[in-house]
């Protein structure tokens, strides 16, 4: 029995390490490409560890454009969008998960289907609309829509709420709490893992969004990080070192964030008192 345990345990570790390496390798290559000298960039077989570390490549790449400004813009968009997204998506998800009303299923299908139209064809009408509102070349088109919830997150949280036993809100209702209080006082705290999950997804989506900023922003002072990144890539030719160095740098904030957020996402809800 004990050896069986041990075999099981080591298999798990081997698998974990194997996949970790698989997922880390490209990241490592990105780092090594960023610090390589130009001559070593295109060697074959590739040199994993460069013979010289040109750390100045990072600084050069970052300074080659106003990346500090881009960083600020991205933080604003990401922050504004995520706050709005969390508030409205959880509210809407609760509405769909915990009420029975006429037309609910229809509305939910509408919600799902609005995920299905590819953005390429609604982009131009949307551009016209934002242009009419005077939002082109402002950050608004990038975050205002998320204040009204996004289908993906609403759907995700609805699934989560639906797996919470209903006894809870019945007890609260007996105590005279109104539906909003039930949502606010009982469900919102219970939804913490899925709220953080949504926050992580939304932050990353905003952080790495390329098409939205490309289409809606004109002026360099409004650019986000990905647009800055794309500046290394023209119609003819690519600055590989620059792309790798900046990608590496801009991946760090979301990674750190994820590292600290993940323990809350996967918190055992079983001990948070649902079973009461």
């Amino acid at each position, binding site marked *: 029995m004990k050896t069986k345990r041990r075999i099981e345990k080591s298999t798990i570790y081997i698998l974990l390490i194997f996949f970790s390496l698989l997922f880390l390798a490209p990241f490592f290559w990105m780092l090594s490409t960023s610090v390589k000298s*130009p*001559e070593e*960039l*295109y*060697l*074959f077989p590739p040199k994993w560890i460069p013979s010289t570390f040109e750390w100045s490549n990072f600084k050069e790449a970052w300074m*080659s454009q106003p990346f500090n400004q881009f960083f600020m813009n991205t933080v604003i968009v990401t922050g504004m969008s995520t706050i709005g997204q969390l508030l409205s998506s959880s509210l809407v998800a609760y509405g769909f998960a915990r009420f029975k009303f006429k037309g609910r299923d229809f509305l939910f299908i509408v919600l799902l289907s609005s995920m299905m139209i590819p953005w390429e064809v609604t*982009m*131009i009408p949307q*551009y*016209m609309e934002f*242009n*009419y*509102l*005077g*939002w*082109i*070349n*402002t950050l*608004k088109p990038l975050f205002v829509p998320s204040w009204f919830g996004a289908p993906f997150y609403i759907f995700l949280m609805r699934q989560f709420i639906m797996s919470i036993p209903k006894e809870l809100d019945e007890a609260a209702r007996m105590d005279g709490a109104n539906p909003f209080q039930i949502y606010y006082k009982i469900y919102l705290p219970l939804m913490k893992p899925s709220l953080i999950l949504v926050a992580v997804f939304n932050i990353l989506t905003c952080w790495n969004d390329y*098409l939205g900023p*490309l*289409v809606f922003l*004109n*002026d*360099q002072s409004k650019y986000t990080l990905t647009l800055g990144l*794309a*500046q*290394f*890539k*023209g*119609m*003819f*030719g*690519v*600055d*590989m070192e*620059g792309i790798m160095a900046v990608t590496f740098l801009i991946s760090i904030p979301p990674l750190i964030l994820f590292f600290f957020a993940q323990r809350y996402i996967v918190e055992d809800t079983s001990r948070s008192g649902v079973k009461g």
Partner: protein
Amino acid sequence: MRKWLTTLLVLILVFALAACSDNKSSSGSDQSTKDSKGKTTLRFATWDSGEALKIQEEIAKKFEEKNPNVKVQVEAYGDGFDQKLAASFGAKNPPDVMYMWNFPAYFQSLEPLDNFVKSDPEMDMDDFYQGLFNYSSMYGKVYGMPAGFTTRVVYYNKDLFDAAGVPYPKDGWTWDDFKAAAKKLSDPAKKQYGFGVRPEPDTYDLQGFVWSNGSSFISEDGKKINGYMNSPETIESIKIFGDMVKDKSAVLVGGKNQQSGDDIFKAGKLAMWESGIWPLEGFKEAKVNFGTVEMPAFKGKPVKGVIASSAVSVAKDSKNKKLAWEFVKFYSSAEAIKMRTADLPVRISVVKEMKTEQDPLISPFYKMLERSNDTPAFLLNKNWDEINRNLSAAINAVMLGQDADKLMNKAVKDSEKYVGQ
């Protein structure tokens, strides 16, 4: 009643939303006219990035110095250029001035420049290489002022030639010389190849080869492709590359974002590479010991080349056309052209003054320019995009080693319906 209440609620919120945006719209949608300091903003869109973009920003600054009440907003769309332009043209909010090469697709939304040129005594149109206007005119009207151009040449790695004991190629060489050299320079065991073949080349770039073999993709009047696109000469000139891949004297290089021929050439694994002026600076930076040479000829036939030109144009919907023209004029002035080092000068006087064509690495580009007097297919037939879809698919297959005759004939057959229209 309850319907009314919800409708009312929704309406109030929508209006609140609209209202909070309306007061801002004055500053937003009018951005192409004036800002708070009374300066006029001129929007200038470019596809360039990196060094080339820096130069353009400097030119814009120079223009601002001369016109203190103007702010030039340089908008760098990179390779999202077409998408971004499409969206802004579609919404009638385009940049005032923009880089342009695909005139057949855009000219309806551009301002013809002839009247500006005529009424501007300072404009010395004769100083430009006249051939360049072919690329920026549609139906007899000029829609863009040339800003830069490049022809295509063969780059070769001198070290690899020396190591293999092969003499450097010289102007006037032939495709047979080219193939023989490539064969000798290839060593698959060392992953070194004589030449790099793009599996999905832009058919535009291939026209130089096809013209050099005395053929073309489409008849000069733009009305026939049968007997042109599938002529034995066209097929021969395209088949060269697929055949070289097959006998391992060339290697397939990646597409746009993959490890491209530029990269492999830099790594010293390609002895020869065919391209425009774009990678030249990069090769210098990577310290490749290289030279450039004219394209090879088909035996007994003159070499022909194709020009990739860029021009600057004014949008029809621009609110500041006059100012936009001033910018275009400055952009194609000798002063601005001298600042532009990323591609080749379009003014004869600048080339003379800076002795550009005497640089041994650059001179083949100007020799190719003299050989570039054919009209590219996309200017000859308005349905070229449709035809080109079939042609590109066929050429992709040829490069991957499939039967060229069959494929090119099929491409012609599939495209016939677009030609006559």
